[in-house]
């Protein structure tokens, strides 16, 4: 399939996601009108923002054919590093955040190195990484006067306002940051040479290598990006909750993969897009929020998300299954008679 048809396929998928998003808003708004209140609707995005941000950059990893399940641990590690540096190290909070970003990048670099240069399976290395980084987060608390079970809090107002503040009292700051990140990721992936290299490494690593692309460096860099993305999410989450804890983000791993995959990125690599991921992350987040507003118990929320994932992807892939196509064609013939 040439690039044009590939691009068209993705575009159709993304418009389908937009359609579903609109549907969601309408339906949930009908069930509970409070859902439509801008303050409530936009405010709810704050609660799943970390999934949205992390999945943006994990998309890069999946496009190269890898996978990254350590992002959740990096979120927690960044959070506690910031907390300890600020609380016990006396660093300025923003300097601490910069160090946090460096930490995330280094974690990504380590795992990316193993995946790219030693040919290890990405799933297992990042699985090991997820244990390692969450363990390191606990180890970091040893350097702090606070015990590991008490988070570090009391951050300056200016810091927490970044995540909790609202523009015009309606649009949350985090949403604005998210949109900025989406634009950045989009430009990086779809408009730069680097982005094209990422795609090519995913389509065929060897061919990319032979055409002069340093595929190993490119693949490793996607893990670094993913690590930085997780750090950003960690910084925002810490600011939003007002507390730095070692286990922040531990539950976002599977939702992130779900969002990336639902957004149209194939785990075999080569296809995908940032817009799709962003839309899918919003779709899933709003689905869960809307269902809770419709009084569905939180414990059951995984079921509709799972159904959504399966049905949505079935539509996409079943369409390309010739047997089913001909089956439906027979129906049409029947009706036309």
């Amino acid at each position, binding site marked *: 399939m040439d690039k044009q048809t590939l691009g068209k396929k993705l575009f159709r998928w993304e418009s389908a996601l937009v359609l579903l998003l609109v549907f969601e808003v309408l339906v949930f708004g009908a069930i509970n009108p409070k859902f439509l209140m801008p303050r409530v609707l936009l405010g709810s995005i704050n609660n799943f923002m970390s999934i949205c941000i992390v999945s943006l950059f994990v998309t890069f990893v999946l496009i190269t054919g890898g996978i990254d*399940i350590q992002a959740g641990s990096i979120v927690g590690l960044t959070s506690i590093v910031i907390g300890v540096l600020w609380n016990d190290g006396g660093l300025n909070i923003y300097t601490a955040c910069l160090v946090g970003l460096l930490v995330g990048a280094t974690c990504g670099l380590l795992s990316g190195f*193993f995946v790219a240069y*030693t*040919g*290890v*399976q990405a*799933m*297992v*290395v990042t*699985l*090991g*990484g*997820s*244990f*390692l*980084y*969450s*363990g*390191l987060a*606990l*180890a970091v*608390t*040893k350097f702090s006067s606070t015990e*590991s079970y008490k988070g570090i809090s009391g951050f300056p107002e200016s810091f927490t306002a970044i995540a909790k503040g609202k523009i015009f009292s309606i649009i949350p700051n985090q949403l604005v940051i998210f949109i900025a990140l989406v634009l950045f990721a989009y430009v990086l992936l779809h408009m730069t040479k680097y982005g094209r290299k990422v795609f090519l490494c995913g389509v065929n690593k060897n061919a990319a290598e032979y055409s002069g692309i340093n595929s190993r460096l490119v693949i490793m860099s996607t893990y670094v990006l993913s690590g930085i993305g997780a750090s950003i999410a960690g910084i925002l989450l810490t600011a939003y909750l007002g507390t730095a804890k070692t286990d922040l983000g531990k539950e976002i791993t*599977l939702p992130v*993969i*779900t969002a990336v*995959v*639902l957004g149209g990125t*194939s*785990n*075999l690599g080569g296809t995908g897009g940032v817009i799709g991921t962003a839309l899918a992350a919003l779709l899933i987040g709003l689905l869960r929020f809307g269902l809770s507003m419709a009084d569905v118990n939180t*414990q*059951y*929320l*995984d*079921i509709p*998300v*799972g*159904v*959504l*994932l*399966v049905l949505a*992807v*079935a539509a996409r*892939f*079943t369409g*390309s*299954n010739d047997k*089913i196509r001909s089956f439906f064609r027979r129906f049409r013939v029947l009706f036309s008679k």
Partner: protein
Amino acid sequence: MNKKFQLPRAATAILFIVALFLGIGAINPAFLSVQNIMLCLNSSVVYTVVALGIAFVIITGEIDVSVGATLGMAAAGGGTYIRDGNTGTGVLAALVIGLVIGLVNGFGVTILRIPSIIMTLGINGIVRGLIYVYTDGKWVENIPFEFKALSQAKAFGNLTWFYLAALVVMLLAYLVMTSTHRGRYFIAVGDNAGGATLLGIPVVGTKLTGFILCSVFAAVGGILYVSRVGFITPIAGNGYEMKVIAACVLGGISLTGGVGSVVGAAAGAILMASISRVLVFLGLPSEYDNTITGILLIVIVVVDALVQARSTEKVRKERLAAKTNSVLETAGEAR
């Protein structure tokens, strides 16, 4: 040719286990007591069974991340009957659950052409939610003592019947997969699905069988879980999928399919199950649990990959040499 290629990979995992055990034993001799080693083996039986099941799927080139949820559902469903005294119904219920989930997964992947990671991810979420619907958030507890005692019943020495059975199943699976006609389909399909179709191998049937076997094994794992653990919380089985996938990879099974054997999966399972235990014997502060697990995993996998890269290179050169030689021979004969 295949046989020679597979055994070395499983052997690396076994070597690792021996090295790890000896290493820990050097630090804390209590670890090397026969009782403790047997304990390690016996307590890895749930992981082993689930890893054996998922090995089928991974060897065919797919993946199944819903095994943890299947185990939990089978444990909760079967456990409820067993708690009330109907052991037979309980076991049957668990197996049916495994069968159904396996069929659904297989159907989605082979007929609807949904990529296996997505299908099983979705099913994972659905089944996890269903466990809550079924148990209403409550624990399934007070399993009859006789049933729990089954997990401790020893066959000979300190080896339990459960683990012995798991070993027998592993051997059977190994023999089937390497020696029987149908068994070799798994590796063929995983190695090159297109080529397999051209040879007349039923790819859809093989993959479907793989998924069904995987979920049924996970369900059996659920029953073993009920017997060993004695109380089932709604999050039973959480995280198992990652651990058994890691176990398979450690045992030499490649996630791209077509390589590896169930022996490796069983060895990897012992390794994964022993890590928590190992850390207690090391006597290090438990804050370092996760750190050490992570380091161990990464080290083992990287070393394994490096070793494999060497042997893959060797095999590739051998194949190339063989081809070149036969071409030269034919050329020589033609003259």
